[in-house]
């Protein structure tokens, strides 16, 4: 449970630090008038969608941190025997890095109103990400062929669980990606998809980070 406790400490620490900056020490009863908000003063009215996404990522991190906690606790029991790590995972990691890079490029292109680049990079993002997921399925197939079944050892079960969950999150991202792509193909102003692309970028980078943590953990145990 250490992992999740550390995560919670980080979240609570951040929340308290943030609250501190919101002047929780002020004496509200002593001040009258339409007082300016710290939101304005800091000059960063980040959009609601971004705030929502940040909280969503906190929820997802909580899920993964809990699974990782469970992983380490379960690993200590005697019946654990490590799972094979298919080579293809390395290629997949490369693909996900490319996907993340492509969406990053896309958000740059959207900011500079370069329609052609947006189209190409959106396409590349989808291509790399779908190939990544296909590659993960290949890894599953290899494990199955070698006899590492889901229910024959907890290490295997965790492997399927981690990879499956991660891929499901990517599929959720791809859903937003497909809607954005359709809108670009339908020819809407780039301005209107800029936010979606930015949100996708954050989400892809985040899931890349999660995958690197998971992959590192699987490799080292």
């Amino acid at each position, binding site marked *: 449970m250490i992992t999740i*406790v550390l995560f919670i400490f980080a979240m609570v620490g951040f929340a*308290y630090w943030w609250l501190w900056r919101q002047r929780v020490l002020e004496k509200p*009863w002593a001040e009258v008038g339409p007082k300016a908000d710290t939101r304005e003063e800091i000059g960063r009215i980040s959009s609601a969608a971004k705030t929502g996404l940040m909280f969503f990522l906190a929820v997802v991190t909580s899920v993964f941190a809990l699974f990782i906690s*469970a992983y380490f*606790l379960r690993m200590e*029991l005697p*019946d654990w025997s490590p799972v094979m790590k298919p080579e293809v995972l390395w290629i997949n990691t490369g693909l996900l890095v490319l996907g993340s890079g492509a969406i990053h490029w896309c958000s740059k292109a959207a900011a500079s109103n370069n329609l052609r680049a947006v189209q190409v990079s959106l396409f590349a993002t989808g291509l790399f990400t779908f190939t990544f997921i296909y590659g993960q399925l290949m890894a599953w197939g290899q494990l199955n062929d070698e006899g590492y079944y889901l229910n024959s050892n907890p290490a295997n079960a965790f492997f399927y669980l981690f990879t499956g969950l991660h891929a499901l999150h990517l599929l959720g991202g791809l859903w937003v990606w497909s809607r954005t792509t359709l809108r670009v193909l339908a020819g809407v102003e780039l301005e209107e998809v800029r936010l979606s692309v930015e949100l996708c970028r954050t989400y892809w980078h985040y899931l890349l980070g999660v995958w690197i943590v998971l992959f590192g953990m699987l490799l080292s145990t």
Partner: protein
Amino acid sequence: MAHVALADRGQALSHPHSFITKYVWSQDHKVIAIQYGITAIAVGVVALVLSGIMRLQLGFPDTFSFIQPSEYYQFVTMHGMIMVIYLLTALFLGGFGNYLIPLMVGARDMVFPYLNMLSYWVYLLSVIILMSSFFVTGGPTGAGWTLYPPQAIMFGTPGAEWGIILMLLSLFVFIIAFTMGGLNYVTTVLQARTRGMTLMRMPLSVWGIFTATVLGLLAFPALLVSAIMMTLDRVLGTSFFMPAMVSMGEQTNYDGGSPVLFQHLFWFFGHPEVYIVALPAFGIVSDLLSTHARKNIFGYRMMVWAIVGIGGLSFIVWAHHMYVSGMNPYFGFFFATTTLIIAVPTAIKVYNWVLTLWRGNIHLNTPMLFAIGFIFTFIHGGLTGIFLGNVVVDLPLSDTYFVVAHFHMVMGVSPILVVFGAIYHWYPKITGKMFDATLGKAHFWLTFLGTYSIYLPMHYLGFLGVPRRYFAYEGIDFIPQSALDLNTAITISALFVAVVQIIFFYNMIWSLFKGKQAGSNPWGATTLEWQTPDTPPIHGNWGPELPVVHRWAYDYSVPGAEEDFIPQNVPESEVDKAAS
């Protein structure tokens, strides 16, 4: 740059006109709140009926042939789960959160109305899945609301066929619904506050709901994770939680799993869950006390810090539910310490409530009665909690009726009293009509004294060592006849309290049609929801202009002002005019 509140940016809200878009597929936070509220109360009634059936068995054993041991376990489980999750969590956050947050912070709606609507329908789906488990082969699960493996999924436990799967599925769906709603609540508080509404000017109700939502967003994943792993154990035969076992003479295929791992995950969610229910109650009760005592809340800042502090601490106490699970005694010492530390901010809140009443101009309106009743039951449940937080005291009392009495006092009766108080308090705003005050007061006294006569005697049963989750107690040597008689008395009180709730439902429905017009601000309250141009507020809440906030939420009985309250949106210049 002029501050443009988020709700006023972008395209104007479109106002739907057909009945369906207005009341069924509505994206209006107030309609969604009422949908959440009615659904939650409806399942709550199911849970109440189940508890009545359980009490019948305990009070009059061997009388009712339709209650067999397995049904008893199924009813205990469903009762507990429904009350905690599908009633209280949904009602406080989905119901009151939805209704109050946008109105209290001066927004036109939640920031993601579509997601908000989806949240309700997914919640309804989770309720339907849960209820359907009554009708499948084997019935609902009887594993206890804690769902501990291995027994939760072993055949022999009632509902091991389908009940447990539906329960896990329903929880999964509920968590998705909660997450969709929760993202809305936090983002609305952070992004859609109107001009002048700084964080430290928010009413404590919003602080409580906001913090509880953050807790929920971080804690429900633990339930999600344990539900996923348990489903895999049950359906695909993995061994996350399931140890090697022999069942009905046969070796199962499970091997090496850890039931204690489940307990850690479950309580990592389960303890914060207590505060997910309690913090909104704390916040709402603060506002009720202040309004009806015509006095500013005592120690507003400390109240905010206490809410936030309790929220943080609630994540490091979970193992106090596991003192008897055989974990390392040093852990027990650590968790007992953190548990007792939480008592400090909690006690501060209690003192502040009492000090708010001190020399206030107390109006014993119905909501106020419920709020004061809450202080009693909460102190009571809080004190027994300090007993149970200590390992040496908990060991003999664990799994006895003392525990049942404790948690019903602190997270059953107390939040329910706040729910009633809050419904009475905001009923005039929600419906535009006034409820019948005499019936309201009768409802309070009968409920308050009735629940005391249910739960006070249970503490004595606990001292005698009467175990919880038992179907029958006859023929157990250490349980005297007097304890069985006491059980009969408790059952009579419980049935009485259940029947008394008819007064409440009658009052709510009757007043809807026949109640007097309430006016926009019958209690003389300061917070923004009472200052809307229309009562009940229409879609979009405010007229053409959003309100501007000039002061904190507790300007009651300000010296020099003519009226004994100054609404949050009244500027200082207009107050002076009113001053005599």
